[in-house]
Structures are given as C-alpha cells and as structure tokens.
C-alpha cells in the first residue's frame, strides 16, 4: 500500500512544471503499448521482451525505433537497456536483463516514423529471484 494520492498530486505538479508547456508533435496518447516477457512472470536474468504497438483501430505501428530501460524501484541500481527490433508489423522483440529480484519498472521510449516521441512507464512487479 502507498500513500499515493498526495504522491500523485506531487507528481502532477512536477510534471506540470517540467513538461506542462511542451506539446508533443503527434498524438501519442491513443497508442496502445503492450509489454510481455517470457517467462512470465519474469525471472532474474536476461529474458525476452515483446512489445506490441497499435494505433487507432488497433492497426499495428511499424518502423518505430523502440528502446526499453529497466529500473528497480529501489535507487542505487544500474538500469538495463534493450533496443528492440521489429519481428512482425507492430511487434518488437529484444532481451532485457533483470539483474535482481523485486519490483521493476520499464520505461518505453519510441520514435515514431512521423517524428513523434512516445514515452511510457510500465510497472513490472515481482520479478522472481532465483
């Protein structure tokens, strides 16, 4: 459990101050991002990550440069990065190294063919220690 209401309020203020005035080039809010791992739930070590990107009407988004950055919730740990490659239209694969068990989050950054940038934070809770 977290005291997240005030935390969120703080986050919103922070976001408003830092990014509030910037407008993104394309409307990325509608893009559907789905990240899965094998094995699932993920375990410690290098495991395969699959990201699917879909735009309006669920049509797959191709030719996107996708990068994943895995971080632990706990500070003081080295992040792991993965550049994904497109395996099928809108489907990107790569390998991400979970160096320790526990709660992670993955930052997805994508450069769209139209020059737009997409950023998402996806929680990956409970990576299993081995």
């Amino acid at each position: 459990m977290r005291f997240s209401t005030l935390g969120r309020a703080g986050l919103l203020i922070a976001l408003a101050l830092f990014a509030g005035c910037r407008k993104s080039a394309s409307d990325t809010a509608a893009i559907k991002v789905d990240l899965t791992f094998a094995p699932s739930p993920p375990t410690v070590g290098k495991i395969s990550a699959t990201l699917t990107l879909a735009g309006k009407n669920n049509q797959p988004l191709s030719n996107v440069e996708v990068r994943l950055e895995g971080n632990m919730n706990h500070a003081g740990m080295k992040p792991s990065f993965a550049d994904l490659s497109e395996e099928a239209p809108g489907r990107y694969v790569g390998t991400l190294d979970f160096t320790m068990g526990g709660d992670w989050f993955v930052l997805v950054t994508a450069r769209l063919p139209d020059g737009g940038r997409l950023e998402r934070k996806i929680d990956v809770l409970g990576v299993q220690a081995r």
Partner: protein
Amino acid sequence: MSVVREIAAPSNQVATFDLLRVPALGRFLRWRYSRIAFQVPLLFVGMLMVAHAFWGPQLAPKNLAALLTWVHFRGLVVVVILLVGNLFCMACPFMLPRELARRWFHPRWNWPPALRNKWPAIVLFVFVLFVYELCDLWSDPWWTGVLIVGYFVAATVVDALFTGASFCKHVCPVGQFNFLGSALSPLEVAIRDKDVCTHCKTHDCIQGRRDHSGETDMSTLKRLPVIQRGCELELFQPNKVGNLDCTFCLDCVYACPHDNVGIMTRLPAAELTISGTRSGVGIFERRFDLTMLVTVFTFGAVLNAFAMISPVYALEQWAAGVTGLRVEWPILSGIFIVVLVLEPAIILGAAAAVTRWGVATREPILGVVNRFARSLIPIGFGIWLAHYGFHFFTGFLTVIPVAQNAVIQAIGQPLLGEPLWQLSGFSAAIVFPMQVGFMGLGLLGSWIVAAVIARDMSPTRTWSAFAPWAVVHALLFASAYWIMMQPMDMRGTFLGA
C-alpha cells in the same frame, strides 16, 4: 559483585593520537566555526534533494532525494562511524535552521523531566522503520522529501521551544542510531589531561563561557551573555565516558579555556565494557530505556534487512491468508511486534534466566538484561553495516548519472555530460565477503563485551554468565547471515503481482 572501573582518562593511560593536534586540520577543527563549515555544504545538498524530491522525476532510481537518502546517506553514516566517528551529527544540516531560529526564539522551557530519556526517540525510531516499510519510502521520492522537510521542522520547533540540545538527546532517531553506532568508532571527544580538569575552576566545557569583560561581581555570572556555549548534551568532559550522546559538535573544544579537549583515538567498543556512572547518561546498565533502544537498534537491523528478501512476502501472504486481512498495516504491525518486542523479550529473558541460574544470583531478570544489553550493540551495528554497506558499495557511483540526468532535465543542457548509466559500484560478489566481515567483527565485538560484563558480574563463574549471551549473539549473526545469503527481492507491493 560488580566491579566499577575507573572512568577512562585516555591521556593518563596510553599515548593516544589526537586529531586536534594534526597541523592544519587540528587548527581548522578548533576554529569556532568549523562545525558550521561542515553543515553549510550539507544544508545545500539537503536543499537540492528536497527540490528534486518535489519537482524532479518521481522515479526513485532517477531522483537525487531517494538515491542520496537511501543509498548514500545511510551507507556513508555507517561507514564513517566505523572508520572515524559520529561525523554526521557533527555536520548535521538539521541543526542550522535551529541555530538561526534561536536568534529570535530563546527557548523558555526545559525538556519535561518525564521525557528526559530515550523513549521519545525509541517511538520515533520504530515509527520511521514502520513507515519506511509500509509506504516503501525507498521507492518514493516525494515522501522522502516530506521526511527530510519534516525533520528540519521538527528539529527547529523542538529546539526553539526547549533549552539545550533536546532534539538531539531525546528525540532524533538518527542521532540515537549514531550514538549507539559510534561506540564502535576509533575516535572520541575526550580530555587530554585529567589534572588540568581537576584544577579547573570554571568548567566552561559544560557551563559555557560568558562575557564578563568589565564585570567584577561573579555572583551575576549566570546573567551574563553566553559567548560560547558549553555541552548542550550535558556531558561534562572529565566524567564523560565514550561516545554515547556526543554529537561531535565541538562546543566543549571551543569552550575549554585550557585547550584540554581533544579528539582522541581509542579502542573501538572498549567503552562498552565500562560500567558505572557516565556524565549526562547515568548508569547505562540501570536504564531500561537504553536497553530498549539497544534492542530496537539490534533487532531492527535484522528486521530492516529481512524486509528486503522474498520470504517476507511469503510470510505476509501467509498472514493475510490466515487472517483474511487485505490491508498491509495490521500484518506489518504484527511482524513488528513479534520481531521488536516478543522475540527480544523471549530471547533476552531466556538468556538472563540462564545467566542467573549459572551464577546463582538473585538479581532480577530485567536487571541482568539491562546489564548485558549493551553487548548487543556491536553485532547490531555489524548487521546495519552489512545491509546499508550493500546498497552503498553496489550503487555509490549511480549518483553520477543521476546528477547528470537531473542537470539535463533542469536546464536542458548536458553541463555535466550525458548520463553514464553504466556506472554503479562494486559487484555483489565483491560486497558479500565485506558484509560477512562486518557481521563477523560485530559478533566478535559483542562476545568480548559480554565476556567483560560477565567477568564483572561473577569473577568466579564468568563462563556461565557469558555463555547464554554468546549464544544470543551467535543467533543474531546466523539469522542475519541467512538473510544476506538470500537473493535480494526489493518489492513494495503487498499482495500484488
């Protein structure tokens, strides 16, 4: 029968090294504003952390408040205490706003007699440990910022209302942590020559120095303005024993007109073998609040490390299944009560009972527990060192990319360069032997201290008095060793995933 040894008088025993006699450094430290010179940079860092906590990214590994608080500050505190002394209290930035506040608010009250002990700090210590687990403070920059600001406010308010260093001595949980830990430090603020104190008339080290220029009537002394205060922690140098309650504020050094106070080397942990009255503390082995503080310090070390491995989630899940509870706080409270109250009561009570039986004494069980309580400090500190040392040594370099990233986010220019995210610290494989070493040293220290206490208690049946406590220390070591062997599993979710 208990043997009360002579109060330590370092300069009369062995030739010790005195940090204040080191050429340039000693001169600097004796300068009246040396403490402020340490505090100002830390205040600046603290303000940067607070700003980043509230306006920086709300992702712990990218936020300076979360990183510096939970990795660097905690790690450096224990490492510096082990290698040098209680330098954090010395450089404590929380004391600066308080000094400023005291220019306008002259504290009118004395700290209430009922609270002239460690109970307020014990409650806060447990409260911070509890909130840390419940709210996953390590993963929450915003709440970490609130904690830092709350600390500044609390220190300032308490010391604006109450005289002396009431906050440091009775309230601050970090201070108590440092006081106990610095029993293991190689340095101590102590007198140079006992004879000088014997002939001293003014006792400025505790009274402070007043401006009596042009004043001849000494009966009005108390009303003269203080130009250099004496020890606010109520430690009178010639009778001071060890580092307990000493913040290394150096007021006594600045105040002593005979330049008789130094920062001396001494044998770490040896102060724990000394019984009898200590200035400003009283008799350690008769103070149940100190026993409780040591207990919370030691068992809290195990608990805080235990919360970082998977079995704790299995335990919480099991408790949730049995009780049907879907919220964490009652379950966490249960774990806290078991580990910090019931378990120590049983283990320490049993050890004391066996000691009583072994030496055939009628001393009450609690009396025996109080006597041996301080032997827990070395192993407790060893466990804190192993845990916080782990985070620090595996991640100390991450401050570089996080700071580089913060600069880019704040001003849009990579003034410190592009973030070097590949930097972290030593690998866990290197840090693990260090952890075992820290805990091993702690175990050894605890055994030596307990052996001396046992000898003082019963010179003829020392082994019978000592053995049960040796087992307690070994049990603590074994449980912490087991915890450190487990893969880290740092989760903040309860019944999640």
